[in-house]
């Protein structure tokens, strides 16, 4: 009882708690929470069968498959190449390394519309890269491959930037111990290094995947937006909005929001796992 009383009577030395927390909650509610609630409120205008019919219409179903599939593949490819890029940037020295390191963040900084028109023009039949691929029979622009390319561009920094600090913190003694006990370099990588990097790789994968699911600007130019073939889910929402069919647009938006929230939760758990692993290592 006595302990409890001491705890609740803790004196705050620093001022401004009520002011800053109050403003934070007010601004958060006004800008984010109330408008987001509008999405869920709007769907109540639809009956349950109408809602179900909208979110399962063939164009929407095709767009979910495409969006999830392309985002998944892009994030997976980024895990592989992102790990190599992060490794090379931490462990090796080469000419221009600092500039390369800074440019990895380009997809964060470059506006999506600029990325979109650039990739579309670059991979079109007479673009710099497109004309090299055309003789091989590979078409990128206006195909699902194009969407994959744009999503790979967007997701690249997520993996590199989550794995890079973990590689920097790797204790060289672990690797030395493993190799002095007779492990080959390859075994050291698979048995010692990769297990330590796994939580960060998963977190990076989830971040890139989540970002790719909602991506719009960089995809629409290269995708061509052919119904049932290269229409991603945000394009379906945009199409319904252009026809002023807000209820339909909102129903599909709800599906995307629910998926995003589940992913956000998963990312939080993953990050907690990554951090726990790190502090465990330090101790």
């Amino acid at each position, binding site marked *: 009882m006595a302990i409890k009383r001491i705890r609740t009577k803790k004196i705050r*030395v620093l001022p401004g708690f009520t002011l800053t927390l109050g403003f*934070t909650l007010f601004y958060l509610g006004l800008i984010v929470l109330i408008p*987001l609630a509008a999405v869920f409120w709007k769907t109540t205008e639809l009956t349950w069968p109408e809602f179900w019919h909208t979110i399962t219409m063939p164009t929407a179903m095709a767009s979910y498959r495409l969006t999830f599939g392309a985002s998944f593949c892009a994030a997976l490819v980024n895990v592989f190449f992102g790990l190599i890029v992060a490794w090379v940037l931490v462990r090796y020295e080469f000419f221009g390394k600092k500039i390369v390191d800074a440019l990895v963040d380009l997809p964060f900084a470059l506006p999506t519309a600029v990325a979109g*028109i650039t990739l579309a023009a*670059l991979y079109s039949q007479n673009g*710099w890269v497109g004309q090299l691929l055309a003789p091989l029979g590979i078409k990128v622009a206006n195909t699902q491959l194009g969407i994959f390319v744009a999503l790979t*561009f967007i997701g690249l920094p997520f993996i590199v930037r989550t794995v890079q600090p973990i590689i920097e913190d790797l204790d060289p003694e672990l690797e030395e111990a493993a190799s002095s006990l007779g492990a080959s370099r390859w075994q050291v990588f698979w048995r010692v290094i990769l297990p330590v990097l796994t939580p960060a790789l998963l977190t990076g994968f989830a971040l890139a995947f989540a970002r790719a699911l909602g991506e719009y*600007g960089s995809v629409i130019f290269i995708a061509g937006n052919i119904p049932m073939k290269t229409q991603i889910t945000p394009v379906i929402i945009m199409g319904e*909005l252009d026809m002023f069919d807000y209820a339909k*647009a909102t129903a599909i938006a709800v599906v995307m929001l629910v998926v995003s929230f589940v992913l956000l939760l998963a990312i939080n758990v993953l990050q907690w796992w990554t951090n726990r692993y790190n502090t465990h290592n330090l101790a």
Partner: protein
Amino acid sequence: MTPAATTFHVPHAVSRRTTGEPPVVRWLLISVALLFLSLFLFIPLVFVFTQAFAKGIGFYFETLRDPNTLSAVKLTLTAAIIAVPLNCIFGVAAAWAIAKFDFRGKNILLTLIDLPFSVSPVIAGLIYVLVFGAQGWLGHYRDAEHAWFPWLQSWINDHNIKIIFAVPGIVLATIFVTFPFVARELIPLMQAQGRSEEEAARVLGASGWQTFWRVTLPNIKWGLLYGVILCNARAMGEFGAVAVVSGRIRGQTNTIPLHIEALYDDYNFAGAFAVASLLAFLALVTLGIKTWVEHQHAKQNETEVIK
């Protein structure tokens, strides 16, 4: 060199050799990394600038001087000038509350602050259409008896304030998509710094504001600057959210990214890339400042360790 030093160095060299990769593997990995980055980063970057000048330097500046381009630049700057300071104030306030005090539900608050990052830009635009659009919560056509906030609705109608398909909607959408940037940079930074320095300042008689300006701000200035430039880059480059609320009226509600889309849809590729080069240049400046800030930050940390 003394013999002792040599013997000290030998095991170290041996261990280096056994834990490193063979030169062939190194060379291969570096090549793969650079090839991948070239395909996805370097070539696109070079491509923007070459295409921008594809029709000559005269055409480039002609495009940039076009009234529609100038109006897009003006609108983008307006949106950023409003959105960035607001999110900056929010970021500092949120970081102060979260890093300097203990309260229940802190983790939930942190997740909610990150929420705009996981919402698709198209949905970010949609939510404001649902609130302020013609049929929305506060729209013109919403019948007054069922209005959610009758006084607010009639105030908006009486003053003939247009939000959707107008500048205020663009500003709101920009604020939403750039919402977490500053807070996200500052919260971990201020949490790591703890509260002892501020508490000492208070005990020594400084007022709350003095503590903030003289103790906290100098400690967080690089993180704050970093958050602000990231926030600004996104504010000026946002496309999807702004596309939904803007209505894309040329010369009136087109921002720079929307103007790029309009030019591209007109098959004016050189024009589109000329305007795009402005934003690509902004992105490079952002990355430059970011690298510089990180350098300053590392230097600050080093001097603190020495102290």
